C-alpha cells in the first residue's frame, strides 16, 4: 500500500491508513525532530504531534501533494517552533557557518572504517547542535531529508504506482522547466 492508498484509507475513516504512515515515517520523523531539537523525548513528542495533526486534517489533504515532503516539513516546523520557544535567550555560534559540517559530512560519506565514521558522526552532531535552530533545520532538510529533486531519486526505488512520487517528480520537473524555459527566452 502506498502513501496515496493509506491516505485514502484514512480519509474513509480507516485508522489502518494512519498506522501505515506511522510505520513508514515515524523513525525518520523522530530523528528529524531530534536533529533539530537535540532532545530525544521532545523529538518523540514532535513526531507524535505531527501524526495527530495530520490525522485530524487528513480529509483536507490535497492528494496532489507528495505526502513525505509535506509531512516532513510539518515535522521540521513543529520541531523548530518547539526548540525556538525553549531556546529563547540562548546563544548559538554566531556566524552559522555550516562549511565545517559539510566538510565532515563529505568525509563521512566515503569514510573507510567504522571507528572513523563513529568519530566523524559524533563531531558532526556536536557542530550541528551548536548551530541556530533555523540553521539546523536547513541542514536537516538539505542533507538528511534531501528535500529537493532527490525525492524523485528516492521514489524510483519504491514500487510503481506511487502517485505521490509522480506528482512530486512532476513538480520538480515544472521547476526545472520553468527555469529552462524562462532562461531560453
Amino acid at each position, binding site marked *: 500500500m502506498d502513501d496515496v492508498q493509506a491516505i485514502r484509507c484514512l480519509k474513509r475513516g480507516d485508522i*489502518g491508513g494512519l498506522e501505515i504512515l506511522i510505520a513508514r515515517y515515524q523513525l525518520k520523523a523522530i530523528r528529524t525532530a531530534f536533529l533539530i531539537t537535540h532532545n530525544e523525548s521532545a523529538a518523540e513528542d514532535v513526531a507524535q504531534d505531527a501524526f495527530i495533526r495530520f*490525522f485530524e486534517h487528513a480529509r483536507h489533504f490535497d492528494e496532489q501533494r507528495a505526502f513525505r515532503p509535506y509531512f516532513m516539513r510539518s515535522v521540521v516546523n513543529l520541531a523548530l517552533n518547539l526548540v525556538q520557544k525553549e531556546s529563547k535567550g540562548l546563544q548559538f555560534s554566531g556566524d552559522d557557518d555550516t562549511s565545517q559540517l559539510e566538510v565532515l559530512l563529505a568525509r563521512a560519506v566515503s569514510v573507510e572504517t567504522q571507528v572513523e565514521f563513529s568519530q566523524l558522526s559524533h563531531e558532526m*552532531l556536536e557542530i550541528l547542535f551548536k548551530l541556530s535552530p533555523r540553521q539546523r533545520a*536547513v541542514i536537516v532538510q538539505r542533507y538528511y531529508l534531501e528535500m529537493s*529533486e532527490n525525492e524523485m531519486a528516492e521514489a524510483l526505488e*519504491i514500487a510503481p504506482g506511487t502517485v505521490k512520487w509522480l506528482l512530486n517528480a512532476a513538480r520538480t520537473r515544472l521547476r526545472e522547466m520553468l527555469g529552462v524555459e524562462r532562461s531560453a527566452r
Partner: protein
Amino acid sequence: MNKKTSSQVFDTAARNHIPDSVDLAPRILAHIQEKKRALMQSHLKIILAVLTVILLFTVLMIGWPTVAQALQRLFGYLPGVGVVDLSVEPRKLAEPVSQTRDGITLTVESAILSADLTVIEVKVEGIPASAYPPESTPIGQRQMCSSPVFLRLPDGATLEMVVRSNQALLSSAFGAAESKNTWTLEPVPTNIKTVTLVMPCILGLKPGAAPENWEVPLRFVSVNANDSAPGAPSQLPVATQAIPTPTLATPAAGTPTQVVTASEIKKLTECDTSCSWPVWSPDGRYIAYTNGDLQALWVMDADGSNPRLLSSIARRFAWSPDGTQLAIISVGRLFVIHPDGTGLLALNETASDWAAPVWSPDGKRIAFLASDGNQPRLSSIDVDGNNLRSLYNQPHEMLDLFFWLPDNRQIAFTTQICRGNPMKCIDGLKLIDIDGSGLQSLHAGENMSLQSLSQDGKQAYINERTGEDEVFYRVNLDGSGTAQLAALLSEQYPQISPDGTRITCNSSDGYFEIMNLDGTDRRTLVKQAIVGFSSWWPDGKRIAFVSEIQGEYQLYVINADGSGLVNVNAANHPGYSDALPVWSPDGLHLAFVSSPLSTDQDKSQIYIVDLPH
C-alpha cells in the same frame, strides 16, 4: 565500509539517540481514541441509531443480496474489501470459526481472498471492561496490546498484516464488550486451502488481561462453492466484473498502434544510481542531468558522447538562454560554467537551493534565492557577479517559483505563508521590478499552484483547489486582470499546451484527457496514464505520456487529436520502467529515463528516440 549517502550518515548518527525499536503507534492511537470518545456525544449516538434502523429496514425489505449486487454494479469492487485483483478466482472462508476462552469468544466471521490481498473479519465478544486500560492512566502511558495478527501457512511461513481497521482500539473508549475488526493481510497463495490465524493478544486490551496467543484454523473455498453453513458468509457479496487490466483506448479506431522497438532507441548514459529528468540545452546540443544521491551534475552531448562531470553536488541548475552556460547552485554557492567544464565563475556564496536559479531572457542576469541562514530572499545578480540586488523578503513567507518577464525588467514569483492552528496557508502570485520597487499582488488563494506560462511569457496559468473543485485562471502578468478558465473536478496534474489553447489532465479514474482551456471539447485520449509524466511537444501537436502496463511503465506518444499512437517500447527489458519524457527544443527527439523497479538494482539509464514530425 560502503559509501554512504548524506542521509544515511545523519541517520546512523541519530540512531544512537533514537533506536530503530521506537514505536509511536500505541501512543498516537491512544490519543486518537481519547479524542474519539470526547466527540461521541449522545446526540450523535441517537442519529447513528436512527440511521442504523433505517439501513436495517431497507436491507430487510429488499434483501441483502439485492443491496449487495446493486453495490457491485455501482462500484465494481468487493464490498467491505475494496478494489481487488480478481485475475484469479477469489475465495472465501468455508465456514465461520469460533473459539471461547475465559468467557471471551473470538469469531472469524468471514474472509475473502483475492490475488493481491486477504481480508478477514473477526468479532470479539465478552470483553470485560476491566480488560481495558483505565482511563485515569495518562495517554501515552497506557499499556495495551498492539501486536498485529498474522496468518501461518502449513509450511510455517507467515503472512503479515497490511492494513488494520482497528475498531477494537476505538471501541475500548466506550468500554465495549464486543468489537469487530477487519484486517487486511498479504495474499494467501492459491494452492493453500488452510491457514491458521494467529492473534498474539486482543488488540486494545491490557497485556495479560485476557487470554493471549489465539490460534484459529481457517479453511477457504471458492466463492462459487456452495458448501458453507446456511446463513453464514456464503452470501458475502462478490463482484462479478473483473477489475480491468491497464489498457489503452483506441483513440483512432482502425489505426494500429505503432511500436518503436528497442533497436530504434539509443541509450545515452547510465547513472550510478538514479538519473534525474534530463534537461536539454536550449540550442539542443547538450543534455544535462544529475546522477546519484548527492546529485552530481553531468552534461553530455545530445548523442550521448562526451559525458563530463561539472559539479559533484548540484541541487539546482539552469541553462542560459543561448545554451552556452549553466547556472548552478551547489552547497550555498551560485556559479556559472560552460557545458564543456571551462569558464567556472563563482557569483555568490549565499545561494539557497530551495529553488533553481533563473536566467533573464537576455542572459545578462540571474535571479536566485539568497540566504544567510535566515529567510531566503529573492535576489538577482549580473552573470559576471556584479550588481547583487536583494528584491523581496517577507518574514515567514516561503518563496517558491520565480521567473522573468520577457522585457527583462520584472520578475514574477509565487509565495506561501502559513499561520494559525490548525495551520492555514495562503499562496500568492506577485510581481516586482528588478530594482525591488513596484511590488504587485496578482493573485492570492488557498491551494493555488502555478501551472505554466504562456509562450510569450505575458500570462500565467494557475489553478486553485477548493474542496473537490479545481478552477483554472489565466493571470495577465502586467496586472491587467485575471480570467477564469475551466473548472474541473478532482483532476490531477493539468498541463497546458505550449500555445495555451488546450489542457491535458489525468482524471480521477485514471483517464488521460484533453480539453479546451474553458473545459469544452473534452475527450479521452487514453484510458490509462500515469499522473505527472506527460510532456507536450514544443509545437503543441503531440504529447508524450506514460502508461502502466502489467506493473511496468511504458512510454507512449499521441497526437493531440487522439490519432497516431506510438508505443516507445523502450528499454524492452523486464524490471525496468520508462518515464520522465522530455522533448528536444526542435521536437525531433524524445529523451527519457528508464529506471529499475526493484531496489536490488538501482542504475537508471537515459535513452533517446527520434520521432520526426
